[in-house]
């Protein structure tokens, strides 16, 4: 049994410490907004925030984030009002939508660190995979979110 702080609440979960955070969230805590795409840190579908930093939860042992502040897509905002979510809605970014939780979490972490990212920053940081190919809109939405974020 370990205790995890997710979206501001403490949860006692019955997993071995080496269980990936991804499966702990999905199977043990019922939070399925965080997605499984590869399990080897290649695609970013499983991106969450750990103490504000983007982390790929499929390769993050649950035991390694005990005591940390974990934020998932469900906790990014209460009502989809985060500037990144609003920009995503404004530009209708998602197609199938499967990669988008990870894309949004990666973007939110980038903007927290760098409120006005350049295209080069985006190329370097947003390394998630979208098979539907929504990249052009993701880039536009990142710039839009940056524009709409009060600094």
């Amino acid at each position, binding site marked *: 049994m370990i205790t995890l702080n997710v979206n501001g609440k403490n949860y006692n979960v019955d997993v071995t410490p080496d269980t990936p955070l991804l499966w702990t969230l999905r199977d043990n805590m019922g939070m399925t907004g965080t997605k499984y795409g590869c399990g080897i840190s290649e695609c970013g579908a499983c991106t969450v925030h750990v103490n504000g930093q983007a982390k790929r939860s499929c390769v993050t042992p649950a035991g390694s984030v005990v005591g940390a502040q974990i934020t998932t897509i469900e906790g990014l905002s209460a009502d989809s009002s985060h500037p990144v979510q609003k920009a995503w809605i404004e530009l209708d970014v998602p*197609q199938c939508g499967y990669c988008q939780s990870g894309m949004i979490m990666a973007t939110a972490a980038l903007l927290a660190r760098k409120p006005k990212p350049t295209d080069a920053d985006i190329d370097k940081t947003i390394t998630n995979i979208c*098979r539907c190919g*929504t990249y052009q809109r993701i880039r536009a939405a990142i710039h839009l979110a940056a524009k709409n974020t009060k600094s």
Partner: protein
Amino acid sequence: MTNRLEMNRRQFVVTTAAVGGGMAMGFALPASAVVLPEPWKTPPAAAGSEINAWIVIAPDDTITIRVGQTEIGTGTITAMPMIVCEELECDWSKVNAEYASGNRSLRENNVYGRMSIGGSASVTQSRPFLQAAGANARERLKMAAAAEWNVPVTEITAVKSVLTHTPTGRKLRYGQVAAKAVPMRLEKDPVIKHPSQFNFLGKENDKAKRFDTPLKVNGSAVFGIDVKVPGAVVAAVKVAPVFGAKVKSFDAAGAKARPGVIDVIEMGKDKKHSAATFASQLNNGVAVIANTYWQARTALDAMAIEWDEGDLAKISTASHTRETLAALDKPGGAVANKVGDAVAALKDARRTVEAVYETPFIDHAMMEPINATASVTADKVEVWVSTQNPISVIDVAAEESGMSKDKIFCNTTFIGGGFGRRGVSDDVRQAVFLSKTLNRPVKVMWSREETLRHGTFRPTAAAKFKAGLDAEGFINAMHVTYAGHSSVVWRGAALGNGVDDKNKIDANQLRGIRDIDYALPNFLLEWHPVQTHVPTGAWRGPGVNQNAFMYESFIDECCVAGGKDPLAMRRNLLRNAKDPGWLKVLNEVAEKSKWGKPMPKGSAQGMAMTIDHGTITAAVVEVSVSQGGEVKVHTLDMAFDIGHVFYKDAIIAQIEGGTAMGLSSALYEELTLRNGRIVEGNFDDYRLVRIDEMPQVNVHFGGLTGGDKVTGVGEPSTVIVPPAVANAIFRATGKRVRSTPFKNLDLSWS
């Protein structure tokens, strides 16, 4: 008023009469909810009146429109209701969508028509009956108002959910008369609008947002992999890595001793299936059942399994390629196209050009790995699955459970991509088998590796082209020999299903060569089928996604040999084209891309065009290649002819997204065979383009020919990117690219 129902021709009318008597089969939500996170569920809240199988209207004017095709990311859950709205003349801000029930469709004589998706065809094939459904409801609402006011129906107009008696100006809202419209019957079906008469589609709907977006930005959209069914256990599965091989032994006891593991079950032990169901059969393998996926997965990974692989394990990419290339040199292929006498003309030609092109197996690599959940009980089977084809789910679940189809309920979830993979229900078969065996609900989950190695892959194909040029340098003869496996039939079926049996041609696989409107006075296309033990299937733009690359690259070779500009060459080839769309699309893209503009050294434009499911496409890309051989695609300009624009933003989204997929297939994608199995397993060795490689996509609408043409745009950009990029690479480097993926080629220059 006579009650003249035409039972077979207009099923949606029948439904109202025969089944519901109308009331309360549908329900509606406040407009803010629009689509439920679990889209298969019937929205709760106020009861409404079901006007026909597609349309439910609540007293507060909320309208729920049922969608027959599942939302896979192309926008169907928004675009299909838009088509109904065009005829229904309703207030779009009060429209909700929900999935139509596949089970109901079966029970009610296919009331929802075509329910599978693929082939860019959602809009094309559904449009007439969605329009008819909207028109039918509109006219009956008018009749209800006419009855209410006791006036002739011809004096009533319907605009934005309001019925107006024109002479007096009296008004009624749809919600006020919906219940009364239910029993109304039409003497004849109203004539539906021609696309040129639309006032909502392609116009007012331009700013409309997609219904599913809000659910996809907060993690609430439920995909198949997210489904929670009470009491369900999780199965991690592994089938024989060599397709068609058998399980010899496995260490069940060891796996069962691990935490959380409930059972270990062999699947598909003595199963025999017909060739036609190969891709959806229960392949021989092992399932580890546990409380959570991680418990099941780690136990499966740790388990020793021995396989009986036989001779199939001798097959490799090298042996398969040898066989394919050897077929190209065999005489007497089945003739797919013949005009004039290409063989004789080639003998007489002043100059000939010859080249062999090849394309590999590739996977759909949709982001959501394969999964399915089933609950088999004594009286029914319930399935929850990300599927492109609910009808195949019902077929397969019925066959595997032994229950009749009316006992099968398919709950279609949101779908994390499909691209042709999610239509055969092999996942559903496993889930039904395991649920039946364990007597409890089971969620089957494939790892990424299992998903990538057990797809229904795009088949390999190779083609040998010979062209003869005339004195001016234009093409006057072409002989193409084609060797490949069908993409619409699977191992064991020689040529069947969807294939021109008489001539032994897979017409589908030859699209992009046999249906191009180029004027070639002497043309011969011959097909040699190549069999493989690898399961194959449709991949976004079947056939065309490899043929456009091979054919349009070869046309570019002819341009070079004949000293012709690619634009001039294509204009010449299109001199007799019956469809004006060909030249219109070509000219549009040439103009918008500024074809022929000067480019710096190491950079170039590349041009290609093709047709896919009736949509003519032309593209120009700008590419730079570093001296070390690294390719960067900067822009893609694309023009196309789909006739009319119905939902502009969704069209642009499809073209943008398809470009990324086409670029991945050109640069990186390939599955290799070693010892009879697929080598690649995950995104580390099956690379896809990321945001840093995404070109700027410029979509041009000036190629549209209007008229009666209505085709789709889900596939064209995917198929056009590889040849356009290959042709640009040649112009930038002098290196001709004759196979995909380009990552395997040395493109350095000096």
